[in-house]
């Protein structure tokens, strides 16, 4: 009786997964087998392995890597310092607040800041460096992406650091390890799971960014996300769009497997 009623509680969950997770993926895979004329074929998969799409895939990976790298570079020390502050929850909140603001609004704000006559260039001029083109460059694209993804990287790392048992650090120091050695041999390995989930949360969406490529990079950066958008909205070649999406899903699964947690016991 009890086991049965527990099964009923699963119904909404199963329905949800079936309707909103499994069905869409199946549909995406299904559509990917139809060419632009609506005939069943493997044409799209062939097309994906032409230089255009391979180049696009490479550049997507390259930018996603850059973004993840810089996000991590900034997020780890920030999270580390946060755990040392007095009111950590307050500081954490301040870091999360910007992520409540709509992405598009932030992108438009950056158009103003990075523009030829924007605040960033005024600052450079005052500093004596002189005006530079910032908007529509690789730099601005990576900068804005890092800014947007930062909270998502900081949170898991912060949690990992926060849960770190301080007695390990004391032990390490008692045994004569330098600060750097303590960090590299004790703190960092113990927070690796936080770093990994942070990287996943950043890398995977970064692969398929599309709005920023136009607004901030002026279409000078083309990612797989841009191509999907174009195929669905402009060309109406749903098959090709779906094929690119299938490859993105495959890439993401591979990344998840590679960065997945090794031991089950360390879930938290």
């Amino acid at each position, binding site marked *: 009786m009890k086991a049965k009623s527990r099964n009923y509680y699963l119904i909404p969950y199963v329905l949800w997964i079936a309707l909103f997770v499994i069905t869409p993926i199946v549909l995406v895979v299904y559509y990917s087998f139809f060419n632009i004329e609506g005939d069943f074929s493997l044409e799209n998969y062939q097309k994906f392995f032409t230089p255009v799409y391979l180049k696009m895939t490479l550049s997507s990976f390259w930018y996603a890597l850059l973004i993840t790298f810089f996000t991590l570079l900034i997020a780890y020390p920030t999270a580390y310092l946060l755990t040392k502050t007095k009111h950590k929850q307050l500081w954490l909140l301040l870091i999360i607040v910007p992520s409540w603001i709509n992405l598009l609004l932030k992108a438009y704000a950056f158009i103003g800041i990075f*523009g030829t006559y924007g605040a960033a260039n005024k600052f450079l001029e005052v500093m004596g460096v002189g005006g530079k083109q910032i908007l529509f460059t690789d730099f601005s694209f990576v900068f804005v992406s890092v800014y947007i993804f930062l909270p998502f990287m900081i949170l898991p790392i912060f949690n990992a650091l926060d849960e770190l048992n301080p007695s390990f650090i004391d032990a390490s120091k008692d045994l004569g390890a330098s600060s750097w050695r303590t960090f590299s041999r004790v703190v960092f390995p113990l927070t690796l799971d936080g770093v990994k989930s942070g990287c996943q949360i950043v890398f995977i969406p970064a692969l398929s960014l599309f709005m920023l490529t*136009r607004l901030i990079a*002026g279409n000078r950066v083309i990612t797989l996300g841009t191509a999907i958008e174009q195929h669905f909205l402009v060309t109406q070649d749903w098959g090709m769009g779906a094929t690119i999406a299938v490859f993105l899903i495959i890439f993401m699964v591979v990344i998840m497997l590679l960065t997945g947690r090794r031991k089950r016991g360390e879930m938290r």
Partner: protein
Amino acid sequence: MKNLIRALSLVLIVSFVLLYIVNRLNTAQGYTGEHTITVYNWGDYIDPELLEQFEDETGIKVIYETFDSNEAMLTKIEQGGTSYDIAVPSEYMIDKMKQEDLLLPIDHAQLPNLKNIDPRFLNLAFDENNEYSIPYFWGTVGILYHPDKVSDEIDFKQWDDLWHPSLKNDVLLVDGAREVIGFGLNSLEYSLNETDKGRLLEAKNKLDTLTPNIKAIVGDEIKLLMQNNEAAVAVLWSGTAQDAMWENESLEYMVPEEGSNLWFDNMVIPKTTKNREAAHQFINFMLDPKVAAQNAEYVGYSTPNKAALPHMDEETTSDERFYPDEEQTAKLEVYENLGKQMLAYYNELFLEFKMHRK
């Protein structure tokens, strides 16, 4: 468990109350079945006062929804979730919607104001005898530039002026495959509706050499960027250019002489309509000279309504950049629906062109 049920029932109650309030509000404002029409138009493409005037005159409530691309509009109408009574697609899309049997024929007898439209803009290839569509606005694709930031050697009478070395990193392009590949074709004196792959490739290769001059390929932001002097030159639609010129008077607009695109946005009645008569009333209302004049002054695009011109600012209507005469429009081409395959090829080339690095 108890808490869960309590929370769930609270959510349910709140949703029902909200639903009821929305329902009541709609009835109170007259948004029910027969007395409403749903108009589906481009963003910022009508003077909102006119919608109120229409409501006052006819007692029909207007639900106004907007889209930002022809393709997005097509998708929503195909799905048929909302009963749109009026939509305003561009010419090649009208052709496509006709082929997909998404439009209802328009009864000209119900449109006494149709006589106001300039015959130049009637009976065009994409919709012969205007069986399914009535012109709303028209315009061109051209070059918007800051005269004082551009060297005197360049006057933009030719598309080739965009390739001038002095414009390094100073050109913005609108993010549209047909527009960009189109001016590439025009600069080679080919047709905008070229379907020969060799010639298209030639145009794409020529565009690749423009890359050093291109600052960015953007969407609607192009207007803002030009107003703020972010770049010296932009390739865009005449209406966007006009908007930017209102804000920044130092800007100039030019349609190169080799030819360019002549585009139309026409009003159509989609199959999803539930109120065909009111849709006709709306179209007829928009064709009224005074209404069309007011709308054109608000939106800034060129009106096809000949009778409206005397009601408008003379400075606007005598401006040949936005109201070119017949001789000039003869050189312009209307996009034809080239079919999915060709459109995909255009987009493929455009994607490759975007990926071409400096």
